[in-house]
């Protein structure tokens, strides 16, 4: 395992709570190893990351809300001290069992979308997936501390000269375009829900951010959100990434289209992930995998070939809806709904129904952007829009209109 002692990005600019400094200027908190650090604030989280980069302490970093009391006890039983770090002040509960630290080991928690979060072993090296020289960028990091996506942006800035970082705390998220514009952010990575919320709330403010790189990941990416971002940023590079704690960053698509080319399936290239489909499930063999996850990993994500693309539609256990014996992909129905010009966000689910067993139903947030033509679509208009594009059994019949796009701490909305 490689332990970075002098990361190449230490002189990159880091902006926290409106204050610009460099990684080198961040405080280096004294923390136990092996240690779990629960940091809600962006400044604390970055200081912990810097500490790990410098001396390779065994570390699991997470937002406090990600680790409940039961999990804290489990981690202490596994030899971790548990520290809550608030504004630079640590409060530490010692481990229940003493053990030697594993130098350079970074632990991540899985998103927990299929149950309790699991611990996956990585290192700064295995989390660093961008190694070639990059054009100078100032990145916005909106992710919760310690998530895979957060580490992706943080390792990029720590290891690559010229990759600056502007972090926002959760209470600043709704105003991120103003913060980003004020600090020269020209690259942003966020979930599709993060982007849809921004497009929904204030597209004009978003358009004022001089973005050259937009990245989407963490949820299924549909064509509609890519197209709307392209309208605002016609010259920018718009990329979507498939990444997880288990298999790392495994798919990167820059052509502005949803899904990845069918030709990428089962292509074996040394040093790069191999992508396969088994029974509609995406299976990945990745060099960026977590500890013990070498070889093919069943991702639990459903993927379908649509024309010349492989489209990831959602979680295997929730994407498929059986309507009277006919199988419906919630993700594909969602893509049809979000392609409606009056729809900002949609969630599609199955609901128990007489005669058929289940029916397709949806929740939709209409667009409210100034300049939108006419009134927002009503249920009937959306049903007819879907009926023109989907088989009859796949048309959502009950469509509830919401006013706000729901979002969780992970910046996802469990679509």
């Amino acid at each position: 395992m490689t332990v970075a002692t002098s990361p190449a990005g230490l002189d990159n600019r880091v902006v926290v709570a409106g204050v610009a400094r460099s990684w080198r200027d961040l405080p280096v908190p004294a923390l136990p190893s092996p240690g779990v650090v629960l940091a809600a604030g962006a400044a604390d989280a970055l200081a912990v990351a810097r500490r790990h980069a410098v001396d390779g302490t065994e570390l699991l970093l997470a937002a406090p809300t990600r680790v409940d009391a039961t999990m804290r006890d489990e981690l202490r039983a596994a030899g971790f001290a548990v520290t809550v770090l608030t504004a630079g002040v640590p409060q530490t509960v010692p481990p229940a069992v003493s053990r030697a630290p594993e130098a350079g080991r970074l632990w991540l928690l899985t998103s927990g979308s299929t149950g309790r979060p699991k611990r996956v072993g990585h290192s700064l090296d295995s989390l660093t997936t961008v190694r070639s020289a990059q054009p100078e960028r100032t990145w916005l990091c909106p992710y919760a501390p310690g998530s895979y996506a957060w580490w992706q942006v943080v390792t990029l800035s720590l290891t690559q000269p010229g990759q600056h970082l502007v972090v926002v705390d959760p209470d600043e998220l709704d105003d991120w375009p103003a913060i980003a514009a004020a600090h020269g952010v020209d690259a942003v990575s966020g979930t599709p829900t993060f982007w849809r919320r921004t497009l929904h709330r204030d597209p004009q403010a978003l358009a004022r951010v001089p973005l050259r790189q937009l990245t989407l990941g963490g949820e299924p990416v549909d064509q509609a959100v890519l197209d709307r971002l392209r309208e605002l940023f016609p010259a920018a590079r718009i990329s979507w990434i498939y990444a997880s704690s288990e298999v790392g960053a495994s798919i990167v698509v820059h052509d502005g289209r949803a899904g990845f080319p069918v030709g990428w399936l089962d292509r074996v290239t040394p040093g790069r992930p191999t992508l396969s489909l088994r029974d509609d499930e995406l299976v990945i063999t990745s060099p960026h995998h977590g500890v013990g996850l070498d070889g093919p990993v069943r991702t639990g994500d459903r993927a379908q070939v649509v024309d010349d693309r492989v489209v990831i539609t959602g979680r295997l256990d929730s994407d498929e809806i059986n309507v009277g014996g006919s199988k419906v992909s919630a993700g594909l129905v969602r893509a049809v709904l979000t392609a409606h010009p009056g729809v900002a966000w949609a969630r599609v689910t199955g609901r128990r129904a007489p005669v058929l067993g289940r029916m397709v139903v949806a929740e939709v947030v209409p667009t409210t952007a100034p300049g939108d033509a006419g009134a927002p679509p009503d249920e009937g208009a959306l049903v007819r829009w879907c009926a023109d594009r989907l088989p009859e059994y796949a048309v959502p019949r009950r469509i509830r209109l919401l006013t706000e796009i729901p979002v969780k701490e992970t910046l996802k909305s469990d679509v």
Partner: protein
Amino acid sequence: MNELSRAQIRDLMAQVVRNQGRVLPDDDSTDLREIGFRSLDFSELALRVEDATGEELNFDAPGLRRIATVGDVLDFLAELQRQ
């Protein structure tokens, strides 16, 4: 229990049909095939009744019958609410 009247169920049925770009005829003896009202529409209507009353309909109850006309649908759902 917040039971819907036959007229209220008819309004919901009209909405189901309207969402498909069609019109529900006034005549209760209209054959469902004439207006293209099929099992998907029937299931949707049942969900709308459930949403309006806050009660699940019990389709396991005995007495399921042949449903051929608009009136049959309304009678059946009105009756089902009481089971």
